[in-house]
């Protein structure tokens, strides 16, 4: 088992190296020169000099050398990784330098992402737990009472929920709960001008997060319920369920132990995949509700051509995806002895 995980981690490093190079390549190919932008700040100072154009060109060249953008792509990539010196110093990811966020007062890129990351992880875990807490019992209920009136009603509702995109749900929720009923604030992270600390700050944040959380959870209900219902229906039709009943097991034990363990196998893949997907899915919710999350930061930085932050975030998504895949495979083995790895 340990050997298997090590092997997988090894593969992950290789995949990450390839992907990081490809992404680095894409972002360097964008026709944008950081040196030109930085040099523009000095332009006013050269205005009165007779050779202003020449000075400006010199400044651009100097800045390019300083940033290392005059080097070829391979050198720049290796420099970004931190395995090759640029201007005589090793300054890359391996040295803990993840880049600079030029649109945020030249703060280190990881600092810019710190606070949004906390918020995003909080929203996502909360929404996932909430959605699973609703959809799993609901899906099992539907599978057990398959074909009944209540099941049919829930099936119609989930089809509707499944067909409406998340941003429409978000807007309808804002209109209903914030504008009409005035239960929740329209957007934002905390009461403007407030200076709460400790528990008060937390409840205030929770109050602001309520509506986005509701929208996110609601948007995922339809598909999740249908999925749980489908895999549970299949599990309940297995021959071994008949055996379990014939043994004299209570119906509850048959459903929640024997059938559920079999239904879990396809659900695990979905849940973990969905959890990964939620990180990018929250881009939409964060933008609609003006939440300071990773997704919103991502869009802002893209618009501000703050590519070093974007690249870092991109890498984060890659890692989440790869780790998620590994966890899926390991969880699969836990749930299903037939795919358990013995090596």
């Amino acid at each position: 088992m340990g050997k298997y995980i090590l092997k997988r981690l090894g593969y992950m490093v290789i995949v990450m190296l390839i992907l990081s190079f490809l992404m680095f390549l894409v972002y360097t190919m964008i026709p944008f020169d950081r040196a030109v932008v930085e040099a523009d700040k000095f332009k006013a100072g050269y205005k009165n000099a007779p050779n202003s154009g020449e000075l400006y060109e010199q400044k651009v060249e100097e800045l390019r050398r300083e940033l290392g953008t005059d080097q070829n792509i391979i050198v720049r990539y290796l420099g970004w990784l931190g395995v090759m010196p640029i201007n005589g110093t090793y300054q890359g990811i391996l040295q803990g330098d993840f880049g600079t966020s030029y649109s945020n007062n030249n703060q280190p890129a990881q600092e810019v992402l710190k606070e949004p990351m906390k918020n995003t992880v909080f929203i996502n875990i909360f929404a996932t737990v909430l959605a699973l807490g609703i959809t799993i019992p609901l899906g099992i209920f539907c599978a057990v009472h398959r074909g009944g009136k209540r099941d049919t009603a829930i099936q119609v509702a989930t089809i509707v929920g499944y067909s409406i995109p998340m941003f429409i749900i978000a807007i309808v929720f804002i209109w209903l709960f914030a504008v009409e009923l005035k239960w929740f604030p329209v957007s934002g992270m905390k009461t403007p001008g407030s200076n709460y600390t400790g528990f008060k700050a937390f409840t205030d944040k929770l109050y602001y997060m309520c509506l986005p959380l509701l929208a996110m959870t609601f948007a995922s209900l339809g598909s999740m319920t249908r999925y749980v219902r489908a895999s549970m229906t299949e599990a309940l039709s297995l021959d071994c369920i008949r055996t379990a009943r014939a043994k004299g097991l209570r119906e509850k034990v048959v459903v929640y132990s024997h059938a559920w363990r079999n239904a879990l196998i396809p659900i695990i893949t979905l849940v973990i995949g969905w959890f990964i997907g939620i990180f990018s899915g929250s881009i939409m919710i964060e933008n609609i509700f003006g939440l300071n999350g990773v997704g919103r930061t991502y869009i802002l930085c893209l618009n501000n051509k703050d590519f070093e932050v974007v690249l870092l975030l991109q890498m984060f998504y890659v890692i989440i995806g790869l780790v998620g895949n590994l966890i899926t495979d390991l969880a699969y083995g836990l749930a299903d002895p037939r795919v358990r790895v013995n090596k």
Partner: protein
Amino acid sequence: MSAPLLEVKNLRTYFKTRNGTVKAVNDVSYSIERGRTLGIVGESGSGKSVSAMSILRLLDANGYIADGTVTFDGRDLATLSTQEMYHIRGNRISVIFQEPMTSLNPVFTIKKQLSEPFIIHQGMSKKEAAEKSVEMLRSVQIPNPEAVARQYPHQLSGGMRQRVMIAMALSCKPDILIADEPTTALDVTVQAQILRLMNEMQKENGTAIMFITHDLGVINEMADDVVVMYCGQVVEQAPASLIFADCEQSHPYTEGLMFSIPRLNDDRSKLDPIPGAVPHPLDLPKGCKFAPRCKYCTQKCIDEEPKLEKVADGQLVRCFYPSKSERRSPSHGEITVNN
């Protein structure tokens, strides 16, 4: 004679489907005595498994018992509460299913699955139950039972899995063991071992066995009494000794089944299969259900349905012409419709 251990009387089990009601079991009666083996024979779809599942009230959601009684040990199973049924299933009446490959839950160890009956029916602790399950595995002659107990079903062969199923079914020393085609999916050598094992277990515990199969050879080996089913009805009921002896009277379907078995001392160059197929359950013939495939069929068979009538001591046949010599005679040939 005392009352039989299990008596199924005028049982009708129907299934509601989109296209109409399927009468899977249509007025079936039989009984099992303690310590004896009842063989139920019939082609696929003849209602033999459904009648057995009706006893345990383990029908699919669209199936229901329309009429009839199932009396087990003096009590009508249809009137028992769900709680009382839980106590019957796996404890007093247990089942071995046809597919050993899929009848065990793939995600639990053998030990866990074997322990469950002990825990729920005999109130044992997990540890006691685990020890008992190893003991059960040993009693069904599984080599190295301690190791097998820790394994998962996919790590065992078909024969081994069926042994585990038998161990599970017999764990609470049931009064009745329903064996629903237990050897169909196994190869012949394993089949013989499993049958011998069931016989031994029966002798040891005095269990009554209800043996459901389409294999007459197995019935010959196992059963004391035989019920032949066709299209949800009993067409013949007789002691095995009578059915397998060349008796004077029988149902043409039973006769056909006998003819379609290859024999060693055969001078036939070809087997005589029964022509045609079982009619669709929603489109049954009006008269005798077997009439379209029967070589002795007359106009009367097409128009009227025969009743299950006593033709000899202990033998019931559902046919207008139960006597073999009579229906094979040239004068009968003049009135037949099918040939």
